[in-house]
């Protein structure tokens, strides 16, 4: 895997409360562990492309249960960053 290339994942929000403040907070702390630039966009409702390292911007996704989020990362540790965010938002064994 070439970590130098931009990478993208899509995840569907399964939490019944949607992408709420506490999950947003965890996303920010995870994202800040990585050098990569990490952005997200809500594909289900019109949203800006937001910086995942900012709680304020993540809240702008206004993602409810069932919404699909596209997360992109660009930087030396992009893939590791996306893996960590996927583990948070859509852990293995959870409904897709």
């Amino acid at each position, binding site marked *: 895997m070439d970590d130098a290339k931009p990478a993208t994942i899509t995840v569907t929000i399964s939490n019944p409360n949607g992408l709420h403040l506490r999950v947003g907070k965890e996303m*920010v702390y995870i994202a800040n562990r990585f050098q990569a630039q990490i952005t997200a966009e809500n594909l289900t*409702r019109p949203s800006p492309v937001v910086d995942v390292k900012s709680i304020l911007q993540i809240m702008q996704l206004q993602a409810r249960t069932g919404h699909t989020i596209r997360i992109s990362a660009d930087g030396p540790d992009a893939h590791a960053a996306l893996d960590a965010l996927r583990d948070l938002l859509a852990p293995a064994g959870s409904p897709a």
Partner: protein
Amino acid sequence: MIALIIVSHCHDIAEGVCRLAGEMTQTPVPIAGVGGIVDENGQRQIGTDATAVLEAIESCWRPAGVLILVDLGSAILSAETALELLPDEQRERCLISNAPLVEGAVVAALEASLGHSLEDVNRAAEAVRNLDKVLR
């Protein structure tokens, strides 16, 4: 690590905002709430008290700085009075934020927990003002 002071006219708002902001931290951030006044009968009333703000700043003091988030009106005046009562070297590391109280405190607590500077934390908190709550 900076400290946060929450100043509201209402004791319960100050305490509640502290609790909410505290939820956003990963490493403990000093956060103190100052709200309301106590009348001559010992009853809590709506209002702000510069002395209480000063005591909160002193008890939470961090060399990295103290960000003061206020609701409105006399909360700002009380915060200003409290700063005037501080020694110069402490006052220089205190900042009254233009951020709205609730959103600003949530953002500031998280940014402070990341170890960001007083100026950077305030910048992130004040950026709240430019965001719509509802996407239309």
